[in-house]
């Protein structure tokens, strides 16, 4: 959105310090926090960062935020009803993820963890292709090449090296793109993540490190991982690090765009710390009440990434109630489609576990698969036996 000088001037200081009027609760994030839209939905300017979005684009951004949240809520409900084995909720991190996703250009490649459902949405990954993983049907059903969105990676940190290697490949191809590596605050302690910083710096690879500091690694607060703000880690490796309000989708978009552009133009890596909060449990198997206070969550509720966009859209008159109603309706449809698609999702073929172990199948595994099929068919019709046996066992 283009800003009137008035807007700008009025809150430049706020923008620059990251402390927004009437919201001191960001103080702990420090003065470096980059923010363009306050929790109250006011635009603030920043000396180094800005975005210029049309009202249409702002509405599209809101739509993505709202739909992503609905996907997450629906998946959580499906897990509760036994349709999914587990679900890793992104509740509260929609701004960081949609903002980062919007910053990606077609040729860029994203390397997610297991929580980037919001980024996936911006890469046109069908939510059902993610849900199939959490349902236990596969390890992710989307095409990582076609969508330029890598498969989810569960082993903490390893994907940061994959992103750097992919970026080194882009370098060698003379390609225009960059790689965007997602990881969490806890992941910053892993050797692989720090090695990826060494490599990115030494080869000045076109990669951006996007760390969602949601304050927790399961039960462990950020203090268990670092004594200093995470974005400062980059200093030790010779490239810039910035901290952005992860609940401010506009600031995240601006900061990530700038970093990706720098990477694409040979200026090397950037570390982005998106300062946010995990509003839900680590996963549906987790019980946060054992390790954190509800009050903490209350404070963060006030910084909701979606509410502030809605507030701005309303204040600026860029959207009316009809618009919000239409999004609501679209979300309902999406949720219904997800529910139906999940419940009707077919189980994988048992023999499929032998098919993709290798690109060039081995005679040994082919035989093993054949024996399996034969043995399995000996229970034909009596699938219950198998099942029960499995359960008893």
């Amino acid at each position: 959105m283009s800003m009137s000088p008035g807007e700008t001037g009025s809150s430049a200081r706020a923008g620059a310090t990251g402390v927004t009027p009437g919201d001191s609760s960001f103080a702990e994030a420090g003065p470096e926090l980059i923010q363009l839209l306050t929790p109250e939905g006011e635009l603030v300017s920043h000396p180094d960062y800005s975005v210029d979005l049309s009202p249409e684009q702002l509405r599209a951004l809101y739509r993505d935020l709202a739909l992503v949240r609905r996907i997450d809520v629906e998946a959580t409900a499906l897990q509760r009803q036994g349709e999914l084995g587990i679900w890793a909720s992104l509740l509260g991190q929609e701004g960081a993820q949609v903002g980062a996703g919007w910053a990606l250009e077609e040729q860029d490649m994203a390397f997610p963890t297991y929580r980037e459902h919001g980024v996936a949405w911006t890469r046109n990954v069908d939510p059902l292709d993610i849900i199939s993983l959490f349902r236990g049907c596969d390890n992710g059903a989307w095409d990582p090449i076609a969508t330029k969105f890598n498969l989810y990676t569960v082993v903490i940190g390893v994907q940061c090296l994959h992103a750097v290697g992919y970026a080194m490949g882009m370098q060698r191809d003379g390609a225009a793109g960059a790689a965007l590596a997602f990881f969490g605050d806890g992941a910053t302690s892993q050797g692989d993540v720090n090695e990826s910083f060494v490599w990115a710096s030494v080869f000045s690879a076109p990669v951006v490190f996007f760390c969602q500091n949601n304050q927790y690694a399961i039960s462990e607060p950020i203090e268990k991982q670092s004594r200093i703000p995470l974005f400062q880690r980059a200093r030790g490796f010779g490239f810039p690090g910035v901290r952005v309000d992860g609940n401010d989708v506009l600031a995240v978009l601006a900061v990530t765009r700038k970093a990706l552009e720098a990477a694409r133009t040979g200026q090397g890596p950037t570390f982005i710390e998106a300062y946010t909060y995990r509003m839900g449990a680590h996963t549906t198997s987790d019980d946060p009440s054992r390790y954190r206070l509800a009050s903490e969550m209350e404070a963060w509720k006030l910084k909701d990434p979606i509410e502030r966009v809605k507030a701005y859209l309303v204040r600026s008159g860029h959207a009316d109630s009809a618009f919000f109603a239409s999004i609501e309706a679209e979300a309902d449809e999406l949720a219904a489609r997800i529910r139906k698609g999940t419940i009707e999702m077919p189980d994988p073929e048992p023999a499929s576990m032998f098919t993709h172990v290798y690109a060039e199948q081995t005679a040994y595994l082919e035989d093993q698969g054949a024996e399996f099929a034969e043995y399995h068919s000996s229970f034909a019709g009596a699938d219950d036996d198998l099942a029960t046996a499995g359960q008893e066992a």
Partner: protein
Amino acid sequence: MPAPTSVTLGKAINMGLRRAMEEDPKVLLMGEDIGRLGGVFRVTDGLQKDFGEDRVVDTPLAESGILGTAVGLAMRGYRPVCEIQFDGFIFPAYNQIVTQVAKIHGRSQGKLPMRIVIRVPFGGGIGAVEHHSESPEAYFSHTAGLKVVSCSNPVDAYWMIQQAIRADDPVLFFEPKRRYWEKAELDVTAEPGPLFESRLVREGTDCTVLAYGPMVKTALQAAAAIESEGRSLEVIDLRALSPLALDPVYDSVRRTGRCVVVHEAPTNLGLGAEIAARITERCFYSLESPVLRVGGYDTPYPPSKLEEDYLPDLDRILDAVDRTFSF
């Protein structure tokens, strides 16, 4: 003397850890989320509250860091008990375990004992996502300098964890995660047998079935199921995976003439391979059929919807037993 109480396997380990910490101030626990949360399986529940943050250490998220610092603590005279959150996440620590933990005692000609226990919830059957259901024990049993054990029931769990902590060598302690909720009567005043021994858990005459960890229960179910058909299986819980304690196994196989080894780990180069090779070397003329192996297939652990097809179960064990008779 407290009366025997019924406890789950997970709780039994918790009690064993508590007792070990009470008896030796040098024992400390390290791991991810083991403090306030009590571990994702609650095995360390309440221990940080009672022993403090210096003895129940919530570590940064780095397994190599956990094992590497445990080595330093062991050099300083501590007995670190490290929790690896899930089997599939032990690999970042593999270098420290295989090149350091396993070798420092030998490297120092005995001057630097590595009194470290590495607790690993292992195996499948809980409907989890990738890397949460694996059985990596063979990677460690093949490594000289390490000792490897696995418990199959609450009573063993309680005693074996304490014995592992008291041992002066590094011990990989594999916990059958799908059995954490199984219950048994535990008498904490009893006298446990030695740690590195296998145990006969069911007598039989026709075929010897070897299992450890989660598969012991499955093997016993198989023995019970086939009894009606008049076939008598002898079941041995191996307990020790390195060193293997096979003397009772040899005796059994010499009597039964048949043997089936069961584990969830992939069959190729799994424990079953070594056990089959040794039994054949020692009992060659007693064998009516080759030792057969029932293991996971030689694929990555599949998505959970397929794990029942992947995991050895009652039927696959009995199928193998049948084959030892049709040889």
